[in-house]
């Protein structure tokens, strides 16, 4: 099952789920975390949930899932061209 799936897929998903569930556990362990812990006067949850987990993290992982196969394709094409004397 999932034979042929690139390793970075699992790394990307691991980072996403790992970070999300770590933050949820921290919120469970530190009751004040959602509202009481502040950065620049605003609850830190605006940073880690609202900006990082909601937007930047999925965007970054989606970009890597686009960019890494592109690089691999370019490398393969380059090697093939070299092999055929191109």
């Amino acid at each position: 099952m999932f034979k042929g799936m690139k390793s970075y897929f699992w790394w990307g998903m691991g980072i996403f789920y790992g970070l999300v569930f770590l933050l949820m556990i921290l919120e469970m362990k530190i009751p004040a975390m959602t509202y009481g812990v502040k950065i620049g006067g605003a609850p830190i949850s605006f940073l880690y949930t609202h900006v990082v987990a909601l937007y930047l993290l999925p965007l970054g992982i989606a970009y890597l899932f686009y960019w890494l196969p592109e690089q691999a394709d370019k490398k393969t094409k380059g090697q093939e061209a070299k092999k055929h004397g191109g």
Partner: protein
Amino acid sequence: MAVNPIVIVMTIAYFAVIFTIGYVTRKASTNPMDYYLAGRKIGPVVNGAALAATFLSPASFLGLPAFIFLLGYPFWWAMVGIIGGMPLATMLTAAPLRKYAPISFTDYYCDRFEDQKWMRIITGIPVLMGTWAYVVLSLVGTGLFMMAILQVPFVWAVIIGALAVLFYVYLGGMVATTWSTAFQGALMAIASVACAIAVLLHYGGFGNLADAVFTSTPNFWLMPYASAEGAVSHPLFRSWTGVIGFFFVWHFGFATMPYSVVRFFTAMDVSSARKSVVWTIVFGGAMYWGLIIIGTAARHLIETLHPLMGQILNTADGPVTIANVTQVLTRIKGDFGVGGAAVTDYSMIAAIESLGNPWLLGLLVAGGLAIAMSTAAGWVVVGNVLLGRDWLGKVFGNKWAIENPIKSLRLMTVLILVVGTYYSFNPLALVLDLSGWAFVMIVATLGVPLVLGLWWPRATRAATYANIIVFFPLVLYSWLYARSVLGSPHWFFLSRVMYGDDRSKWISTPHQWYWVFVAFAFFIVVSLLTKPASAETIKQYCDDLHV
């Protein structure tokens, strides 16, 4: 309250753009491949914006801020789950399916599981249910926006929305749908972000907004077990099954739902399909960023600024002076409401109305119409191919449908929208809620065979049939039981059997989402017990698609 001319002008401008796109692109759809799939010529930015607008429905634009309004901060994680599910699709389904390059959603199941007739019928049934539920939901969303903000009578608002969708889907098929939906995707993101920035400016930043919310609703920021006294933001978030459940309930949909999957087929190539997902997050994530701010501020904004505060609400016990947010929303529902819609569905509109800025309201109505109409159109183009090409042409071999593919699809477009409009006129709450059932049901019945068909050579035809036959009624029964007997589709349907009437012990399982994981296990077991497809088929439709 009189409607501001600026709001009217902005709404007219929105419709003018949509009609223009439909008219200009009408000649681009002269051959069936253009009508089905926009000739597979759509670049990643346009496809990504269209994906965002199609996948995110009025349930997002109206429903998610309402959920935050009701359930508090923990629901932010549910929205993270929806956007976080998008990168999954890049490698799981978007790239392999674009390499395979089918025409309709059911094609893959027929080819992978070696059955061109019954597979098309059986897989089409959940798709058709989804089409019906989402077209009705979207048309009602269109009506709600036009009625609550523009005060257009609801029936006329639904008819205008349905005619606009009919105009561009009928004329331009997938070409017109894609371009208008991409415009709608950009518009809904701009509307949401602009309204959120206005809210932040009103409060003077994130910190002041958070403090105001804490003052009016101290429980807003609580997670399960977060306080020593055991207080929680809402009973549904009393346990972590609620938080994790809401995180996962819509998480896998983007990779497997028909209305998003067909947009992977319209991309120019595999690379473009992958990049489309990046742009979907750019637009969809931005919209969600804004919705979180609006949903968080809604209760405080309405209570402190809404013009209906202090006015009269007629109740069964006689007239009362409006003194809280529930009474404001009840009055709005009473004045402009629709039978099945919940009072909280108006919280997003009422929150922006409280700011008293006609430009924002105009943008909100345009953004709301955009997201509602784009989802309706997205499902119509799935449904018309299913009915006009797959069932009428391929299953029943209708000569007229085979020889006139575009006419056949146009006929089905009219049919779907007439039925959808009829059910939208006086929607029962059950009909509006059904989209939640349809979502989990489609992921459990069709999503599982799609993902495992692509990534597991051992996936079988028998398991696909078994999944659909077992989980279609099972998800419906458990969802209906929880909703009707336990009072909410978000309670685990066996809660009363397990814990009696003590609601404090009941388990929260939003929309019975756990069936998705049960369906995966069930599919694997049945596949291992039944005969796999031929080696040639597995190579062609599984191994060779791994890119």
